[in-house]
């Protein structure tokens, strides 16, 4: 258990360090994946449109000038609007795009759980239970004892 926790912590620290390095020293391929060509609406990584070429030149120049990833993206948003970003920013109205899928998953999961519980309960009710086999459940032990006594008396 402790080993698993340590591994998870190390993984999280590693991911954070990578993200920090990527923010401070971004690469062109990284930024290409996070941006959209404004004319063809394809990822900058695959677009061969003239403006995509110009954007790549701009990014190279900004990387060489020492800009961080956020600064470069912010400059491109200033030029083309937020539609240039492959993923909407996590703020304001755009936050909905991030939250709605999780909310949908949560609601769907809850609905499934409720339905599954109802179905299993309905099945339990339908299945005959106890030794009587009449679907009404086992006899009360006290009642059973009295029935046995009466039957014994009757036999005698």
């Amino acid at each position: 258990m402790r080993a698993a926790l340590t591994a998870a912590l190390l993984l999280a620290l590693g991911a954070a360090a990578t993200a920090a390095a990527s923010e401070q020293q971004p690469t062109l391929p990284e930024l290409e994946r996070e941006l959209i060509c404004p004319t063809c609406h394809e990822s900058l990584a695959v677009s061969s449109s003239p403006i995509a070429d110009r954007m790549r030149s701009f990014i190279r120049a900004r990387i060489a000038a020492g800009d961080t990833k956020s600064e470069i993206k912010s400059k491109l948003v200033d030029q083309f609007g937020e539609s240039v970003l492959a993923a909407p920013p996590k703020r304001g109205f755009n936050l909905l795009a991030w939250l709605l899928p999780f909310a949908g998953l949560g609601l769907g999961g809850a609905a499934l759980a409720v339905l599954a519980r109802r179905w299993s309960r309905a099945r339990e009710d339908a299945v005959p239970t106890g030794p009587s086999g009449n679907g009404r459940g086992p006899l009360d032990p006290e009642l059973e004892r009295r029935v046995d006594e009466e039957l014994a008396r009757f036999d005698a």
Partner: protein
Amino acid sequence: MARRGKIALQTAAVLVVGLLVALLAWQVVRTDQGRLLSSKVASGQKPQAPVFSLDRLDGQGTLSLADLRGKAVVVNFWASWCAPCKDEAPTLEAAWQKWRDQDVVVVGVDLQDLSSDARRFVERYELTYPALRDKHNWTWGRYGLSGLPETWFVDREGRLVGEHVEGPVTAEELDRNIRIALGTA
């Protein structure tokens, strides 16, 4: 109580679906309005030109189409990376020089471009007519643009008239449509 909850949930689901359908319809209608402009103008109608107010590339404030009411306006949409835009730039500058004293304004709207590239383009082709920067692609949908360059003509009342030119505009097209916009054709 359970029945009531079920009805409330069903109503909420129907409302959400209705809202999404309305959103889709609104988006389709809004996009089509720009596309319809071209067919309206071709059939002789004079729809109101979508009004815009955009930053000037030279940094000298903004220019609004509404401010040009009373003049004939040539609205040319362009970008520095577009090859046909390079071909037509000298023609537009020549038309501006020819007509500027006769209540005609040529306005260049730069779209889908880097401002620094657009400024270099203006310098390189020695363009002196007002060049505007549409950073957020606002005019693209409103004017139903399908590519660059495209040119529209606006009359003194702010209505779209003449021809909607898709591709590089020629001197003849400019002269002919400017006369229509001035009402002297």
